[in-house]
């Protein structure tokens, strides 16, 4: 057990919540995921989920208050799983209020909703949203939103 614990790694990156930072965020997570053993389509799914999650935060959480940041934490257990946590201090949103993507509705209508959220859930094994979390640790914001995504090898 001890040797396995030693292989775990935790890394963090904070980016400005801007679209021009999306590839930086994806590349950061992809590099860690690849080192943990993810490859090919699995790696693409992780990259896609991070891309969609950051896009949602930029587009919705910080829609009224641009200039915010996204804190990305990656916990990797090589050969087992990766846990990606995204923290923002923007406006919370209700995932239940986002229309569930329906491919049938796209046949005759270009207005498609909930695509990013749908892809995140399909790409990852577990996706959990927490809103208005109260910060308790030193250096933590008073209130933040936390998205946790898990992918198993």
């Amino acid at each position, binding site marked *: 057990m001890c040797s396995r614990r030693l292989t775990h790694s935790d890394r963090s990156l904070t980016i400005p919540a801007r*679209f*021009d930072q*999306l*590839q*930086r965020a994806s*590349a950061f997570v992809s590099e860690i995921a690849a080192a943990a053993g993810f490859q*090919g*389509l699995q790696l*693409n*799914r992780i*990259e*896609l989920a991070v*891309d*969609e999650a950051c*896009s949602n935060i930029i587009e919705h959480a910080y829609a009224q208050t641009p200039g915010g940041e996204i804190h990305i934490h990656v916990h990797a257990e090589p050969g087992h799983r990766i846990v990606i946590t995204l923290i923002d201090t923007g406006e919370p949103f209700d995932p239940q209020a986002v229309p569930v*993507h329906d*491919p*049938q509705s*796209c*046949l005759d*209508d*270009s207005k*498609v909703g909930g*695509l*990013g959220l*749908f*892809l995140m859930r*399909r*790409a990852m094994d577990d996706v959990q949203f927490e809103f208005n979390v109260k910060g308790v640790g030193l250096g933590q914001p008073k209130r933040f939103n936390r998205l946790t995504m898990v992918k198993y090898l």
Partner: protein
Amino acid sequence: MIASLNVTSQRLENQSVTILRLAGRLDATTISQLERALTDAQLSGDRVIVIDLSDLAYISSSGLRVLLTGRSNARKRGGEVFLCSLRPPVREVFEMVGFTAVFTIFDTLEQAMEAAAAASGG
């Protein structure tokens, strides 16, 4: 390492068909290039747009939305958008959201061009 998108456009005037070749990544930061190319193709009056994705390495929901809007606009004018040559990571994203049943997708550019010629009446 920041990758980008390259869009090249080719018009086949005798067939009223535009071919768009996408290379790189189609995400929120690069969609404007495809939007411009689609608008140009539609302004040219071409009824059918064939989009060759053989060199597209990555697509996100932003890219999917632009393709869907392009298809919708083309169909309003009695035209069509055909896709071809999806690489596995891109095809998987289409499959995840059920877009393989929404778009007409061909394995090769040749097959797409045959269908485009028939659809454009050329």
